[in-house]
């Protein structure tokens, strides 16, 4: 869409804030997506992993004779492995004795642990051969519940001497924490285990070049970080490793370097042949890290007029079989425990334990949903105890709009916000008072189908660990520009958003700006995409690099126009440089690039910038409306109004898309999805048939309401938007379901609040 089509005249100065259609769409719509599995790789051998079918067992022996009898099949086991365990990541306090052997050595620790690798000419033969690899196991007791794991009666890593991967906060209790409270409520929320389910299962390919360099094509969110970890794990200089992330079909936090990608690169070197592995969905459901899996026990106290005085939160994180990022997430949960409320006293303790389950990593929200889900549930329990409207309890505890920057007692420094404003906007948008009237009417009538209204007001943290991102802008010989970013896009639309950011500064049509990313040979450095940090640091870096290019262009134009650089101005509407006050004699970008090319001075129109920022704190308010059949437990989500404030929006079309998808995932946790194991650690939901991934038929349309409170932390005013919808939606829907059941004495429903759990809660309340 052109600026004119958005109602802008030629005088319209900025493309920012316009609903520009995505530049990357056509190739996906035409079926030309460049996913790793689609890349041509002549003569590539197929890699198939033989995975453990038991959750916890000693490996007695492996017989690959029958498999290797198939044509051109080779089986590789731990006996062939010359690399040590992978991880755990170097987080402070994480038990270093819990590394993940790339191929299981003597023991398997979850269903999906790799016990052998089949190399074959094609995938079908690989699948046949993998079934013929016979593994003799001696089963061990399986630890499925983190509560059991914390007892340390059975150990996953005997040498570590404990199942505790890490802890945060303090186990000490202040006996006086709830002094002065008229009302103290407590409860437990289990933020259940979820499978991230990017639609593209992982794929990895690798090839050893004639120069001894290894190129790895990965379905990943973090190509530059992967390159460093890959080099370190393989014992190579980073210069010997190139990582290329082409198109990636969704990540949601789960697609970062894991054992499989390391093995594929290792195999390419060992075999000196190109190799490729593409995950099946059933494999992905057990092998791609899961998310959430945190049990939270809360106690909240306050005065009888609704002022919260104290909050205690204890988190038990199931880290899965090998601690990765998930083990660290209680740190974020603790940091964000206070939510949008000014709570004078907070106590937090987090523990992470290993269990015989799929490792837990980041999944859309990663530690912050758990904090929001708990404080928002606790507020509702507190409100119910007081007989106060949940909206009113929130109003009495919000951090006020004029208090920013605001430091919580858990040491988060919120940059900016207007929590009361977000709530009032959401309540107005949904028609809150009318809905409460309708609810009262239905309750009085006493029908089976009751209405529930749920509120959540949340704040989250994006770019949570003060990261830096790289941006580079280069004018091309035809007068267009290339933006190179160390950020990555696996659906977020950077090819459009980042082009808009640079186009705005350069005064070029967005069509003339191309965004390059994902290739460590082309982009000098980068951190990748996770934690909703792309625009606020990567976008800001691209903007600042573009500004440098403009300054350098003024120098060049000054030479050509025989003027002082100080007198040269850029007309951003026309993309022309001229002497101030004399627009008739001007150089367009095409003119300038052509002359600079001829003079071999084009390199002067290239600049890079690294931008570092403190975290920003997006916030919002969601209101959910549900109908619950109180006889069967069936829940139907009727409406969800989402006010998500992520600061200034660069492209509202794309930002809305992020909210929609985020909300869907939040609702999926509230109502549908749960990854379940039996008592022996067998996954019961390891396919899309068993796992309740909602379809369009399970969800309503969303009512996204824009609100923009710019952050002072970057020149764009932008915060993160990728995870907000998820964080806000789950507690709103959860609270709505419980609200519908309040007349029946129900005070809580376990997540997911599906028919079964609602029915159970109703039966327990009746008992």
């Amino acid at each position, binding site marked *: 869409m052109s600026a004119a089509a958005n109602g802008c005249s030629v005088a319209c100065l900025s493309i920012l804030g316009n609903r520009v*259609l*995505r530049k*990357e*769409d*056509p*190739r*996906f*719509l*035409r*079926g*030309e*997506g460049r*996913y790793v*599995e*689609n890349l041509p790789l002549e003569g590539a051998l197929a890699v198939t992993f033989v995975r453990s079918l038991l959750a916890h067992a000693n490996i007695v022996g492996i017989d690959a004779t029958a498999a290797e009898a198939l044509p051109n099949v080779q089986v590789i086991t731990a006996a062939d492995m010359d690399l040590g365990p992978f991880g755990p990541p170097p987080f402070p306090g994480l038990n270093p004795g819990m590394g993940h052997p790339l191929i299981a050595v003597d023991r398997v620790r979850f269903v999906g642990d790799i016990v052998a690798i089949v190399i074959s000419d094609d995938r*079908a033969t690989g699948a046949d051969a993998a079934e013929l690899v016979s593994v003799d196991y001696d089963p061990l007791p399986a630890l499925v519940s983190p509560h059991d794991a914390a007892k340390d009666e059975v150990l996953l890593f005997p040498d570590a001497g404990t199942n505790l991967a890490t802890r945060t906060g303090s186990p000490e209790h202040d006996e006086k924490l709830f002094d002065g409270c008229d009302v103290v409520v407590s409860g437990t929320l289990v933020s259940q285990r979820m499978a*991230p*389910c*990017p*639609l*593209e*299962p992982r794929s990895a390919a690798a090839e050893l070049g004639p120069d001894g360099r290894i190129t790895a094509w990965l379905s990943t969110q973090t190509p530059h970080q992967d390159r460093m970890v890959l080099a370190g794990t393989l014992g190579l200089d980073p210069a010997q490793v190139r990582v290329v992330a082409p*198109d*990636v*079909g*969704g990540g*949601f936090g789960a697609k970062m370097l894991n054992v499989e990608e390391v093995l594929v690169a290792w195999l390419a070197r060992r075999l000196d042949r190109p190799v490729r592995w593409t995950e*099946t*969905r*059933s494999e992905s459901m057990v092998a791609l890290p899961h998310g959430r899996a945190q049990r939270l026990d809360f106690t909240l106290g306050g005065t009888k007029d609704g002022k919260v005085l104290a909050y205690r939160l204890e988190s038990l994180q199931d880290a899965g079989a090998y601690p990765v990022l998930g083990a660290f997430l209680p740190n974020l949960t603790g940091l964000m425990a206070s939510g949008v409320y000014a709570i004078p006293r907070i106590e937090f303790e987090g523990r992470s334990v290993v269990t015989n389950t799929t490792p837990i990593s980041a999944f859309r929200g990663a530690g912050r949903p758990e904090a929001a889900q708990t404080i928002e549930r606790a507020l509702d329990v507190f409100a119910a105890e007081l007989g106060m409207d949940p909206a009113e309890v929130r109003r009495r505890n919000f951090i006020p709009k004029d208090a920013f920057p605001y430091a919580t007692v858990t040491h988060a420094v919120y940059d900016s916000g207007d929590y009361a404003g977000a709530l009032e906007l959401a309540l107005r948008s949904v028609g809150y008072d009318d809905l409460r009237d309708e609810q009262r009417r239905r309750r009085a009538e006493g029908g089976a189908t009751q209405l529930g209204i749920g509120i959540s007001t949340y704040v989250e943290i994006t770019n949570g660990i003060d990261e830096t991102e790289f941006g580079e802008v280069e004018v091309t010989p035809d007068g267009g520009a290339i933006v190179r970013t160390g950020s990555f896009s*696996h*659906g*977020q*639309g950077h090819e459009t958003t980042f082009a808009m950011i640079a186009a705005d500064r350069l005064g070029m049509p967005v069509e003339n700006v191309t965004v390059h990313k994902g290739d460590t040979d082309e982009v000098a450095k980068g951190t990748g995409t996770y934690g909703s940090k792309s625009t606020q640091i990567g976008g800001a870096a691209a903007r600042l690099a573009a500004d440098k290019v403009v300054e350098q262009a003024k120098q060049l134009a000054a030479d050509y126009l025989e003027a002082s650089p100080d007198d040269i101005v850029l007309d951003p509407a026309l993309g022309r440089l001229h002497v101030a006050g004399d627009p008739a004699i001007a150089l367009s970008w095409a003119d300038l690039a052509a002359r600079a090319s001829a003079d071999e001075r084009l390199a002067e129109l290239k600049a890079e910038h690294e931008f570092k920022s403190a975290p920003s704190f997006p916030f919002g308010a969601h209101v959910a409306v549900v109908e619950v059949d109180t006889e069967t437990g069936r829940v139907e989500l009727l409406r969800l109004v989402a006010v998500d404030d992520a600061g200034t929006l660069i492209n509202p*079309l*794309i930002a*809305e*898309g992020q909210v*929609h*998808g*985020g*909300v*869907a*995932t939040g609702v999926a946790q509230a109502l549908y999805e749960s990854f379940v194991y039996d008592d022996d650690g067998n996954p019961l939901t390891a*396919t*899309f*048939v068993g796992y309740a*991934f909602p*379809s*369009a*038929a399970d*969800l309503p*349309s*969303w009512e996204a309401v824009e609100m923009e409170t710019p952050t002072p932390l970057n020149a764009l005013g932008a915060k993160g938007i990728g995870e907000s*919808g998820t964080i806000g939606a789950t507690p709103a829907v959860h609270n709505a379901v419980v609200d519908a059941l309040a007349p029946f004495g129900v005070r809580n429903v376990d997540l997911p609040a599906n028919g079964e759990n609602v029915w159970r809660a109703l039966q327990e309340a009746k008992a």
Partner: protein
Amino acid sequence: MTKIALTVNGSHCEADVEPRLLLAYFLRDELDLKGTNVGCDTTSCGACTVLLDGESVKSCTVLAVQADGCAVTTVEGLAQGDELHPVQQAFHERHALQCGYCTPGFVMATVSLLKENPNPSEAEIRDGLEGNLCRCTGYHNIVLAVQAAARAGA
């Protein structure tokens, strides 16, 4: 090996295939039509949806030999040169795709849906696309795109 002859995106083709070969992999690996993505192994996600004699099927659950004598249309067969098919165009204009992996399947399923029901209600769209999964969009803009494509007479 079994000999098959079929029409794919208007072109006649013949091949010797293993009886167990799925249509999805025949299209991807034998014909190099990589637009048909495979997202699951249980006929759940619909990423691999193609048209078989004009009706949508999940090509991961059709054997290549079952397509013998049939006409197959994949996502590569929709656009007319530079001009996107109205369904593709509607998905673009309504921002109905993000990572793009489910998109070919949704587009093909929509073409089939609108052929059966040119003016579907929102509920009919949601029910009609129940066999396709998307993790990015929350379906909201996909529904808008289908409505827009219907208005455009796709």
